[in-house]
């Protein structure tokens, strides 16, 4: 008999709904999609949407779009927390988030737990449904494949399963018990990449986390890129395209776009800034002051980088290159 978790499915979709969205809303032709964070958030991100973020929480995250969501006071988001770190934490600080599909959230890995994230959950302000990193990846892969679910062998026998919205099924060939993971089609995803062309073809260097599948699975995909390159970059060696252009709705040029996070091959963490943020997170007032200084009172991401300063940014490049 099928078992099922008691968690709420924060985003539901059938296989035919996936198909019909893609038929009716995704542009196929090669059109120029270059825009700004401000316009992209205004156009594509609404209160109450289900959001997924590329990268790994504090590595290769799209900070221009995260700051812009806070600046535009987007609210009531549901967020996929597959190793969410600084990305989710800033959105929680900006009071943008109602619920999280948690795999790893509210913490900063070796740096410890986030006071801000914990406070939001422990006060009941942010609701949690439990999953795992692989489970969220496979849920996204299901939507990318146009399937209503994928089977897997994780989560079984755990409270993680009990507090999820997964079910169990039997393999039709072997009778083996498996977990069934429902497809996850985010309303919008934001992904930071190394190179993109103006149509939206993207290359990610280093680990991919799940961003190829995420781009295929999402209703809308907003990409920020360290550099915009001519499309010949992709056409000359098409095997290196991580994300094909027709998945992408907006392209934004954003050097240092993962700051204060790490961008593999480009720059390492700004530990000083992350410490400043985490320290502010201990207290609501200090956190407000942090947001006032770095988000609300700056016009855009470039003005934010000016606050950080070129000397610091260059030092992060040297740090990344182990110099």
């Amino acid at each position: 008999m099928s078992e099922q978790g008691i968690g709420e499915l924060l985003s539901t979709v059938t296989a035919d709904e996936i198909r019909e969205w893609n038929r009716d809303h995704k542009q196929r032709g090669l059109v120029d999609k270059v825009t700004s964070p401000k316009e992209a958030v205004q156009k594509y991100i609404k209160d109450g949407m289900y959001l997924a973020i590329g990268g790994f929480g504090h590595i290769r995250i799209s900070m221009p779009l995260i700051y812009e969501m806070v600046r535009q006071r987007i609210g009531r988001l549901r967020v996929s927390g597959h190793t969410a770190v600084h990305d989710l934490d800033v959105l929680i600080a900006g009071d943008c988030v109602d619920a999280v599909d948690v795999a790893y959230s509210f913490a900063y890995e070796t740096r410890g737990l986030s006071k801000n994230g914990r406070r939001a959950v422990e006060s009941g302000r942010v609701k949690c449904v439990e999953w795992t990193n692989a489970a969220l990846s496979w849920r996204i892969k299901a939507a990318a494949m146009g399937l209503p679910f994928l089977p897997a062998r994780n989560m079984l026998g755990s409270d993680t399963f009990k507090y999820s919205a997964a079910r169990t099924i039997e393999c039709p060939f072997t009778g083996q018990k498996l977990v069934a993971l429902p497809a996850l089609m985010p309303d919008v995803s934001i992904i930071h990449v190394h190179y993109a062309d103006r149509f939206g073809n993207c290359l990610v260097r280093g680990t991919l986390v799940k961003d190829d599948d995420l781009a295929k699975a999402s209703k809308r995909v907003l990409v920020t890129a360290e550099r915009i390159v001519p499309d010949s970059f992709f056409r000359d060696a098409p095997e290196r395209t991580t994300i094909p252009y027709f998945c992408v709705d907006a392209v934004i040029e954003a050097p240092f776009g993962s700051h204060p996070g790490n961008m593999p091959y480009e720059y390492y963490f700004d530990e000083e800034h992350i410490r400043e943020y985490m320290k502010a997170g201990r207290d609501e007032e200090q956190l407000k002051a942090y947001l006032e200084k770095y988000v609300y009172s700056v016009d855009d991401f470039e003005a934010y980088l000016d606050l950080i300063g070129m000397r610091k940014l260059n030092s992060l490049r040297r740090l990344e290159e182990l110099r």
Partner: protein
Amino acid sequence: MSEYTPVELMATVASHQLEDGRTVGVGTGLPMIAALLAQKTHAPNLIILFEAGSMAPEVPTLPISVGDSRCSHRAVAATGLAGIMETGQRGMIDYAFLGGAEVDMYGNINSTVIGDHDHPKTRLPGSGGANDFGSLSWRTIIIARHEKDKLPERVNFITTPGYIDGSGARERAGLPRGTGPYRVITNLALMGFDKETCRMKLISVHPGVTLQQVIDNTGFELLIPDDVGTSALPTKEELERLREIDPAGIIIGR
């Protein structure tokens, strides 16, 4: 004999559990230190997999995250979470190396929540890749603090299943056969699991620690065999390597 900290001892004892020429999925913090130490000592051909997608990297300096650029430095391949966990699901990951806030007598791990799930006393980060590694790898090695409430009879919340409630429970739940917790390393002792009952069993007590201390700091009835040994002291070479891995003492200085 050199001076060493309890964390350094845990790291060396942990590193001894890893075999050369095998694969290991490694979590943040002490597991990472222990795996890097094994590579620099008895297991140069130990293959590390990090959940964000890195395969067999040459880690140059201590990473902050299992997904940062140190973890994919000169890797042979860079894939993603699904790529790594599918490698595990098809049986290619020999060891998983995890930490946890609570570990119980069946090796179940809690890293999700203390108290009621929906109204938690303490919210922890959740599974991350721990449930995946712990479900899909052949042998799970767990690092925990040896205190009564960190080693309870039953964890508050099974984030990552150990032997659940005893023999055969993993297979009944649908988890891959032949998998499960293998070792638990604390600041006081090294433990394994009884083949028949799947309960946690003492293997060795760390130097300078008494059996009674271990018993007093365990929140359940630990199985104590006749042949309990003493854990090996860190060698001078191991301590030197450890201090090369974490020169600032970010983990080993804790």
